[in-house]
């Protein structure tokens, strides 16, 4: 039984190995890669069926294969587990992952490096599974950095393009900033609890409790010799929060995600919308016990989520690139999830994570289909009127947009409503207002995007738009169905997800607030209609390379939104450039002239001393005789005077 769960990450890994070392043909690569992910999905379903057969309190299958790190007191097993929280994540990763693999067969057709593409994709699935299945923080971190690596490889897949390679490095480095904090957090967890395991593990007959179960023990303890009396949980959870802001693209580290759109579109769907970027939310949910123990950190989490949602939402309005709209929208939606974590509404966060994973993957794949059908066009100013040429894409995209905007009864409505309702019922008024405003903005920019892509006239006639093939439209339809019915997993009346997650998160289902739901729906419909109406009415004013119609009224603010509040520019000025200057100062001045100058100075000193001493070696016997005599006198004098 236990060995079964190893198959889940192992199958995609086999695909990775095969694609790296054995397979050389495109067709085989796509089939093997997709087939193994589908197989992994099937195994996951079987394992979860077995899991649900267990009594509620025992729903955790754990399997340790070997000692990973084992020195002194530091013991870290290489182990994975399957519990209700992991289960839903595994289903999302393998399910959406499989669809995107299939879609990629069509999208990447003819690319010269397609075999490598599928290898990376399989490695990504493996690492993502380790992230969600790890039974300790270090395995989670293995997956965490592993998906970061795959993200690097896939963003930079077309590495010949300068913007792709820049974006790849940027993504990795920005994530590393969060990871450094994550490492520090792990060090502190180990130092305080003596283990990195989440839950109890029995090693050789000894049962050792995990750190999540021991959180109550350390409340009130202090950190370090000096920093008294800050509670340890605040320090640890805050460090983990920084880690999450990197991976889940939150303020202030969100700048890498929009650039990451330089990668192939299925990658954006899989990694930068549905799965990897939700890693931070998963991690915070998993460590719920730690976060809940620190109200200070929780309010930071909440505000970071709220601010990110708003900043990214407003930035999404002003984008022209079809993928960048979705990218900012993803950042914004992740902000909703993080805010939910901050409020303590972890089930709502996971619910939104799941529905968002489905409908955002749908939107990205739809965008990919549009890009594919318009011969690599990404600028929405060059599109328009595509609903006739690409009907399937259009309808499925409409479903995705509606789900994102939060229109009843699509999946996004239920999950977003749950977050807002929780904010309302727990009196987070300022946050509620900002989040509600953001959801209106969301609806608005989706209306704008649909209008720009699918309505009006085609504004650039250099291409002939066509619908994509079956291998791409079938995943679209499957995801669209998911986006329609996905909300059913946690309806206010059934709350199946809340019950399923109860062994892990111990949460009661929130109350459904009809007034809020009505207002939210009315707002969503109104705002998306407004967006759609403005940009179909003014379609004639949109020119290739021109300004947005709204630019007339908002002026520079629009520029600011388009540049995402100038965060990139700020970082370049206050971090990147000073760092480069410091580097070149140290490398070209301080090191050679300062430190090495000292070293060489010592050398010169000895050289000069040698010059002086050499004068005595004049070759004149009388000088030597004089020195010799003086020496004898001194030594004799010393002996006679002092050593009696």
């Amino acid at each position: 039984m236990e060995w079964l769960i190893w198959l889940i990450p192992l199958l995609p890994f086999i695909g990775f190995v095969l694609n790296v070392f054995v397979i050389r043909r495109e067709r085989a690569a796509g089939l093997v890669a997709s087939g193994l992910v589908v197989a992994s999905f099937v195994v996951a379903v079987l394992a979860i069926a077995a899991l649900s057969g267990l009594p509620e309190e025992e729903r955790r299958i754990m399997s340790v294969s070997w000692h990973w790190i084992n020195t002194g007191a530091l013991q870290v097993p290489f182990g994975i587990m399957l519990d209700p929280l992991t289960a839903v994540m595994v289903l999302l990763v393998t399910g959406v992952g499989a669809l995107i693999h299939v879609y990629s067969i069509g999208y990447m057709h003819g690319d010269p490096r397609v075999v490598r593409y599928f290898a990376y994709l399989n490695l990504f699935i493996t690492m993502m599974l380790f992230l969600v299945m790890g039974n300790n923080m270090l395995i989670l971190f293995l997956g965490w950095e592993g998906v970061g690596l795959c993200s690097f490889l896939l963003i930079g897949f077309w590495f010949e393009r300068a913007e792709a390679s820049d974006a790849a490095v940027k993504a990795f480095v920005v994530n590393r900033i969060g990871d450094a904090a994550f490492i520090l957090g792990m060090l502190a967890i180990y130092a305080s609890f003596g283990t990195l395991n989440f839950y109890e593990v029995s090693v050789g007959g000894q049962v050792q409790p995990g750190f999540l179960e021991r959180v109550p023990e350390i409340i009130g303890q202090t950190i370090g010799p000096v920093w008294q009396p800050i509670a340890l949980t605040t320090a640890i959870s805050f460090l983990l929060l920084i880690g999450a802001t990197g991976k889940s693209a939150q303020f202030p580290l969100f700048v890498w995600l929009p650039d990451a759109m330089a990668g192939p579109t299925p990658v954006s769907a899989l990694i930068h919308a549905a799965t990897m970027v939700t890693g931070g939310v998963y991690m915070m949910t998993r460590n719920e016990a730690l976060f809940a123990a620190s109200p200070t950190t929780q309010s930071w989490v909440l505000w970071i989520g709220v601010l990110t949602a708003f900043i990214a939402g407003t930035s999404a309005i002003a984008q022209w690139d079809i993928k960048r709209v979705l990218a900012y929208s993803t950042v914004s939606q992740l902000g909703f999830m993080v805010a939910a974590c901050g409020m303590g509404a972890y089930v709502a966060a996971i619910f939104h994570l799941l529905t968002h994973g489905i409908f955002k993957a749908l939107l990205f794949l739809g965008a990919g289909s549009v890009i594919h059908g318009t011969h690599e066009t990404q600028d929405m100013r060059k599109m328009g009127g595509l609903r006739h040429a690409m009907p399937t894409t259009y309808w499925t995209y409409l479903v995705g947009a509606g789900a994102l905007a939060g229109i009843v009864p699509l999946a996004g409505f239920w999950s977003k409503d749950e977050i807002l309702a929780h904010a309302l019922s727990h009196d987070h008024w300022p946050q509620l207002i900002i989040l509600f405003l953001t959801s209106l903005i969301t609806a608005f920019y989706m209306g704008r995007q649909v209008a720009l892509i699918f309505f009006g006239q085609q504004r650039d006639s250099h291409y002939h738009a066509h619908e994509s093939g079956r291998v791409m439209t079938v995943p679209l339809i499957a995801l669209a169905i998911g986006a329609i019915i996905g909300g059913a997993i946690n309806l206010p009346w059934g709350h199946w997800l809340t019950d399923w997650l109860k062994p892990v998160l111990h949460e009661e289902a929130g109350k459904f607030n009809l007034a809020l739901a009505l207002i939210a729906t009315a707002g969503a419909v109104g705002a998306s209609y407004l967006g759609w109406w403005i940009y179909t009415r003014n379609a004639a004013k949109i020119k290739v390379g021109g300004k947005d119609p709204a630019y007339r009224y908002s002026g520079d603010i629009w520029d600011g939104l388009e540049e995402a509040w100038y965060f990139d520019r700020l970082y370049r000025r206050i971090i990147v450039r000073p760092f480069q200057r410091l580097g070149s100062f140290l490398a070209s001045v301080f090191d050679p002239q300062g430190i090495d100058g000292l070293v060489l100075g010592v050398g010169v000193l000895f050289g000069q001393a040698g010059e002086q001493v050499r004068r005595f070696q004049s070759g004149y016997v009388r000088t030597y005789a004089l020195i010799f005599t003086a020496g004898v006198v001194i030594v004799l004098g010393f002996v006679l005077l002092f050593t009696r």
Partner: protein
Amino acid sequence: METLPILSLILWLPTLGALGLLLAPRDNAELARRMALIVALLTFVVSLALPFGYRATPGDASTMRFVENLPWLPMFGASYSLGVDGVSLWLVLLTTFLLPIVILSTWDSVHTQVRNFQILMLLLATAMIGVFISLDLLLFYIFWEFTLIPMTLLIGIWGGSNRIYAARKFFLYTFSGSVLMLVAIIGLYVLHRDALAIGQPGYTGTFNFTTILANLRGGALQLDATIERLLFGAFFLAFAIKVPLWPFHTWLPDAHVEAPTAGSVILAGVLLKLGSYGLIRFNLTLFPEASRWAAPAIAILAVIGIIYGAIVAFAQSDMKKLVAYSSVSHMGFIVLGIFALNHEGVSGAILQSINHGLSTGALFLIVGVLYERRHTREMAEYGGIWKVMPVYGGITLLVTLSSAGLPGLNGFIGEYTIMQGAFLAPELSWPFLGFAVLGVVLAAVYLLRMYQTVFMGDLRNPENQDLNDLNPRELTTLAALCLPIIALGLYPAFAFEPMQASVGEVLTGIATAVAGR
């Protein structure tokens, strides 16, 4: 096992090979390379007996195994005594593993006076192994100094345009540190002889490490706190220069830039580890009180080195110089681990010594591959190489990530264990680690910048259009290095296991010092 002097065999096989090469015709390069390779492989195979034969359990009186003991200069009490324990085991193996790889790489990188090159390389191997397995202070010192001679010649004869300067700097800098160590060794010898002569008149003294240590711990030889700190300082300076610890690092970039590829690999792979090995074997073991006294200050230097090395590496345009400064950063981690003075820190430092030898050695080989093709190491000359050299690009990425500390590869295990150790050390903990983790970020910054500049982007430079991917020989050397990089990343427990008892033994003095405080 008891009858076969296996350590002597490993130690002297390379020298025998060097003597054999002297008989070979001077200008038959191919023959010289093959002979050297065979000798190196043979040494490696023999050395494989060490991890398989090594058994030690915590609580053993001594964890030294394969011990050999012969009188050498009885009037001074110097002996030919060898032994290997969990601290030196993997370092010996690293040396014997890198030797055939380095010799294999000379087919592509050494084209003049091939025979002499191989002779020096084999002599160097004997000296390095000797340092790791000597249990006699005088013998240790002789091997220690003898490593300088072949290395200086390797840089000075086969090096780049500024080789004489670099070779002289290398020699003088490291030598001046070692001289103080000689004084300390003699001082320790005299103190030990005089202390024991009280009980047994006419005692001639000994240079034997195990005996001196036993008497230190047993209380027969008691060091005054000031004397202990002075001795500690003299040993420390020699090792700190070798490591090199900031601010004693400036010989390293010069030496690396001028050294031939094979020389750089050995220099970074093994020679720097003589320093970290010495710190563990002598400073920590012999002078526990002084170690505790100096640890925070040294840890500060280590953390400065981690960050400083990384920032300077970022600003380099020459790939070899970049890798050289990255060594300063990485070795800072190792010193930090050692002076965490606990089990995790020290065993992490030993493992990281191995890891650094593998991944930095591989990085120097990688730079050498490009250098042989284009005769430049300026990053700006390249760009988009991944397209024409896909296998090379893939292997380089793996090695780069190992060096940057990606989980699942060896570098992370070492770094994490070191950081955990340093975090658990009450004197270090938060403030030190708060800075040290910056090294993790910066490592990604400078290494990926190099990778991006060289391998990604457009293939602009026309001279790079027809670069050939790795030839079978290059592939063999790099693949051989990649295997342990992955193995140590996924299953480091097998490397940690034999260390346990010996690291515990190293730290007993410190544990007593803590308890007695």
